[in-house]
């Protein structure tokens, strides 16, 4: 761009005054757009340069440099092309375009300047001459990954493509080497004619290839393959260093409007202490292409307003950078917001970054209904609403929260949630009703006593002995396949779905098959013995089972997921696992629980879905999740304390009504979201407001649906409204989507109609000589937790027939009852 050219030169030669003048001039001439002028004209307040230090090893090594300027309001600009770079010792390294290349061993530094700002980057050249042979694992396989050869839609498919198979994303280097060089001798490669063998010709499109031309002959990719062939197409003779971490830079950016760009740079750190620029070998993706798209060369282009995670994958590592796109030139001054506790502080920080103003507080009526439904699964009584609204105390909300936390129903709600996670249900003729009930009762006792969750998990996973006398042993009965148990533990207690890694390295996360099977090894020795009662079983933790890696056939030793090898000699592996799971070494445990609790109160997790934690699905507010998790584990997993924090936050108490800035926000908790009541709560509340009792099979009359012990206990209502069947641990078992059957059932079904009739509230009130208006008011208060507006009463009574006949009156008022139970205001928590 011409402006850049002028500006760059001006800077180097003439100093700041002139440059500013030239910039202005050039803007007037070339860019008459005001917002553009503002954009170009603004001086940055800080300069970020990536990477922050550079190491070069060997003749072929190089490093790209990326620059990012930060404006006073946090908006960032890509200044990679604009920075002026001076290599201090010009005989140690030199710039070759945007790449720094080594000249001789030694240390030096780069001085990088932009708009009066200067950053120094230390450079170490370990060697400038080393030119080792091309490595199959370090150099060739990354080419297959980057160019998509080993992706699932090409040769990475389970059966390969067109007769040639590579392991998906390269999980099996030996196998890939074998298939390339030995499976069909002399066909796929030819070291004598490297330019004219199948590998070269297919990849460069010289012969017909379903995948087309993958790269050209003059590309670096081709040169790597060719050199490998020329050097004899060998497999690495020694163990190659492993990639230990991958860094994507810049780690975050706030882009100013559609079309703004940012270049990315990716480096990998290896186990031998070296680093490498892998920008050209990484594959890029984005979680939201319309906000920030990314080219395969790693250039991010901003689109519409919003946030996106841009990801780079190299080897088994996927890393992300947070991108926010704002409307160009947006003028936003954050309003000072009251803060009830740390939750609000973290939320407001994030909202300021997104230029969003949160909604106002919800009304007392809405609050008391919301919090009663969330904590206890009930709606407030008429009396509670009236007293609460009349109360003028400034701490009435937190007092009410404390009262709710002391109710039994609070325990029932969380016992239900845990029963879903633990799949408590009778199951074919494997798990009897008796087992399910024993297990459920144990869980209820634990949660009533506010037992710290870490203790519960240790008891569960380490459980042994009779499933009758030691109820948590039933954990190993709800699921018996050790691989399934492994997956369930990862999903329930760490929030991770590692299923993919059973057959190949996880395509969207860091988990490899090694990780999967060495984690599964913790459950390899679980065995079951029959007992005298056919329903009873004895769980043993020290059976003779093994976990084998299906590709290598190697027997796997237990290793913590994302952690170290476990020391299990002489110990029950499961206990070792449980202790690690709940220890500080495992960051996922407390975060996962905190997130599950959060999601219960907001309708979505800070990571959403709550059991889909992966690099490519980051938390919308990392500081908030960390702090919640930290507080939770520090408090000794005091569950009530966390619920108290959440419900007392201003964020929880926000109104659903959106303002101009937050209407489209559905993820950052800037206003309350509508949430349909869960099936169990809905049927309980219908019974509550109609003054009737539910009857579920095997439970006493009047028992609540949230108290159902056995996941097989159900009825049409619960099924239709999407209760969890507890068939898997997945959070997706609970369904809240509306459907036609639900509407039909509320309109015509017996649940609503029979309960209105048998509760006979309207009849009773008429007998007490209450007037029509009064009855309508009581119905509103009872069902919706608010008084009707005058207009509402008028509009409803306008539909009434003028009659003194009590029976007819009752019919009309019961129609109002029906309408209230069918209303969206009733079906949703808001």
């Amino acid at each position: 761009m011409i402006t850049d050219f002028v500006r760059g030169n001006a800077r180097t030669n003439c100093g700041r005054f002139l440059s500013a003048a030239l910039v202005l001039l050039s803007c007037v001439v070339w860019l008459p757009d005001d917002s553009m002028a503002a954009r170009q004209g603004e001086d940055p307040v800080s300069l970020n340069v990536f990477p922050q230090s550079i190491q070069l090893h060997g003749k072929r090594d190089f490093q790209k440099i990326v620059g990012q300027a930060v404006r006073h309001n946090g908006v960032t600009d890509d200044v990679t092309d604009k920075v002026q770079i001076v290599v201090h010792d010009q005989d140690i390294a030199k710039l070759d375009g945007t790449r720094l290349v080594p000249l001789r061993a030694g240390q030096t530094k780069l001085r990088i300047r932009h708009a009066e700002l200067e950053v120094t980057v230390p450079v170490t050249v370990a060697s400038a001459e080393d030119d080792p042979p091309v490595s199959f694992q370090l150099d060739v396989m990354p080419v297959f990954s980057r160019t998509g050869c080993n992706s699932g839609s090409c040769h990475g498919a389970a059966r390969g493509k067109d007769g040639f198979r590579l392991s998906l994303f390269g999980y099996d280097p030996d196998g890939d080497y074998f298939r390339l060089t030995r499976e069909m001798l002399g066909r796929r490669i030819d070291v004598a004619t490297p330019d004219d063998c199948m590998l070269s010709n297919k990849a460069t499109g010289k012969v017909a290839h379903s995948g087309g031309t993958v790269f050209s002959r003059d590309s670096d990719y081709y040169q790597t393959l060719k050199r490998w062939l020329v050097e004899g197409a060998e497999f690495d003779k020694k163990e190659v260093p492993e990639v230990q971490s991958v860094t994507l830079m810049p780690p975050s950016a706030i882009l100013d409007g559609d079309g703004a760009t940012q270049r990315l740079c990716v480096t990998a750190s290896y186990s031998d202490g070296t680093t490498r620029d892998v920008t050209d070998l990484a594959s890029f993706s984005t979680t939201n292409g319309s906000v920030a798209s990314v080219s395969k060369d790693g250039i991010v282009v901003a689109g519409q307003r919003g946030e996106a995670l841009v990801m780079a994958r190299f080897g088994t590592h996927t890393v992300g950078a947070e991108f926010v796109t704002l409307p160009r030139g947006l003028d936003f001054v954050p309003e000072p917001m009251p803060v009830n506790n740390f939750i609000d502080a973290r939320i407001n920080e994030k909202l300021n970054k997104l230029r969003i103003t949160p909604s106002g507080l919800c009304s007392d009526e809405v609050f008391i209904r919301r919090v009663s439904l969330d904590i206890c699964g009930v709606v407030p009584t008429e009396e509670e609403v009236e007293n609460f609204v009349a109360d003028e105390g400034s701490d009435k909300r937190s007092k009410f929260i404390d009262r709710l936390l002391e109710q039994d129903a609070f325990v029932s709600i969380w016992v239900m949630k845990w029963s879903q996670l633990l799949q408590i249900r009778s199951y074919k003729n494997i798990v009897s009703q008796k087992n399910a009930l024993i297990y459920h009762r144990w869980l209820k006792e634990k949660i009533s006593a506010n037992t710290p969750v870490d203790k519960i998990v240790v008891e569960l996973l380490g459980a042994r002995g009779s499933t009758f006398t030691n109820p948590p042993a039933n954990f190993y009965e709800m699921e018996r396949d050790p691989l399934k148990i492994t997956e369930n533990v990862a999903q329930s207690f760490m929030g991770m779905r590692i299923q993919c890694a059973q057959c190949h390295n996880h395509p969207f996360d860091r988990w490899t098959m090694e990780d999967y099977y060495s984690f599964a090894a913790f459950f390899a020795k679980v065995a079951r013995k029959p007992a005298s009662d056919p329903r009873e079983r004895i769980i043993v933790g020290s059976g003779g089972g093994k976990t084998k890696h299906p590709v290598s056939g190697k027997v796997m030793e237990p290793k913590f997921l994302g952690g170290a090898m476990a020391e299990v000699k002489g110990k029950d592996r499961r206990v070792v696992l449980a202790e690690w799971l709940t220890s500080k070494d495992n960051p996922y445990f407390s975060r996962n629980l905190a997130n599950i609790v959060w999601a219960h109160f907001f309708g979505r997790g800070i990571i959403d879905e709550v059991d889909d934690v992966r690099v490519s699905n980051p938390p919308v507010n990392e500081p908030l999740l960390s702090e919640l998790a930290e507080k939770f584990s520090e408090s000794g997993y005091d569950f009530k304390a966390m619920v108290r924090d959440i419900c007392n936050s201003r964020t929880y108490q926000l109104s659903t009504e959106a303002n101009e800035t937050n209407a489209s926000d559905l993820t950052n908790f800037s206003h309350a979201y509508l949430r349909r009541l869960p099936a169990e709560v809905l049927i309980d509340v219908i019974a509550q407001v109609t003054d009737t009792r539910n009857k579920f099979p095997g439970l006493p009359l009047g028992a609540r649906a949230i108290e159902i012990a056995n996941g097989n206990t159900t009825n049409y209502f619960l099924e239709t409204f999407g209760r969890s069947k507890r068939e898997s641990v997945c959070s997706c078992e609970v369904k809240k989507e509306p459907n036609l059957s639900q509407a039909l059932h509320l309109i015509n079904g017996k649940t609503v109609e029979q309960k209105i009739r048998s509760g006979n509230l309207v009849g009773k009130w008429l007998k007490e000589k209450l007037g029509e208006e009064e009855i309508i008011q009581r119905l509103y208060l009872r069902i919706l937790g608010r008084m009707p507006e005058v207009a509402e009463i008028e509009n409803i009574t306008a539909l009434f027939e003028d009659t003194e006949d009590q029976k007819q009156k009752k019919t009309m008022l019961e129609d109002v009852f029906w309408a209230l139970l069918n209303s969206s205001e009733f079906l949703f928590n808001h």
Partner: protein
Amino acid sequence: MSNSAKCSDHLLSRRNLLTVGAIGGLTLSNFFRMQSACAEQKFYESKEGSAKSVIFIFLPGGMAHQESFDPKPWAPLEYRGPFKSIETNLGGVRFGELFKKTAKVADQLTIVRSMTHGEAAHERGVHNMMTGYRPSPALQFPSMGSVVSHEFGPRNNLPPYVLIPNEPNEFAGAGYLSSSFSGFSVGADPADKNFRVRDLQLFEGVTSERFAKRRKMLEVVNDHFRQREQSDSLDAVDTFYNRAYSLISSQKAREAFDLEKEDPKLRDKYGRNQAGARMLLARRLVESGVRFVTLTYGGWDHHDKIQDGMNKMVPSFDQAYATLIEDLKERGLLDETLVCVTSEFGRSPKVNANAGRDHWPKVFSSLLAGGGIKAGQVYGSSDATASEPADNPLTVQDWATTIYSCLGINADKELMAPGARPVEIVDGGRVCKELLV
């Protein structure tokens, strides 16, 4: 042809307004901002095609192609399997011996013997056949029924997409589309003696006048909430209430679900069993206006004793399916009703040690009939041992695109997924002209 000029019409239609809402509670200003972005969204108008409705018969578990529509009578015994083959009324074409009645309507069908995909796990294979897509961990794709529901909406007061008896799997849902496009489950097995679709009738004691008043009262209550709240889930609830009202108020629509209104002789002919009752109900529904009926029958995952399994499953399927084709033909409905029979995959070429066959997605068979599909042909073939497609492999994408094209939907059209992400109905499928009349 792609027609982006139609974009605004497209977005402003009432049905699509809902879809837009589905992206995430958009305000009007956001909505208009989106319109400018939609120039890039590939748009084609959907117009009813040769197939006015689809009956999608899904046989879960993976029916063996060797024992059904692609027998290999000359293969060695371990490939051939336990059954003999029989002649059909299509010269030279043979079926497994259990499909006696289907063999007599073969001249009405296109028998695809070269279906192929790469997913050997049930849920992944089912995902393919329900959505036309390979599963993705990043996106939930809508089922074909939901896409049809999205493109055309209801007809004659009936839900556009009906599931018999229930949603057979999670992929039969609306995926990334608003849940308003999910199917309506009849909720009970039509083969049950007291089969009745629940809650279609007003509750006893509620007259239609009284019901009309109730609706007005409900409007008053909802108005208050509606003025304050905006959300996709609210829209979806409203949509379903409106659908429910039209279903309840139309006697004709309600009767479509009532098998008692059917001639007992015809019910016998279909068979008074699961296969017969489900297919008969499907016919009643498409006859009355339902656009897409998905029904499942049986369990076909015959890893063990495939002979027993097939003997148990096939006869009632065979009777019901052949009757369905004849019945549609007699009523003149076959030309406008596409009947599709498929499993998630076929079964392995060799009979295994348990006298069963294992999963095999590499090649398997499907049946297509009516609604613009050519009558009386075999499309594609498998090799001598039924292990690989020998000629004209038909991918899931092409198969789905062809079905959509019969319905009048160009599958290259992009629908909006969350995050304003346009996604093709089918990615890269082609219409397979050889399948069409």
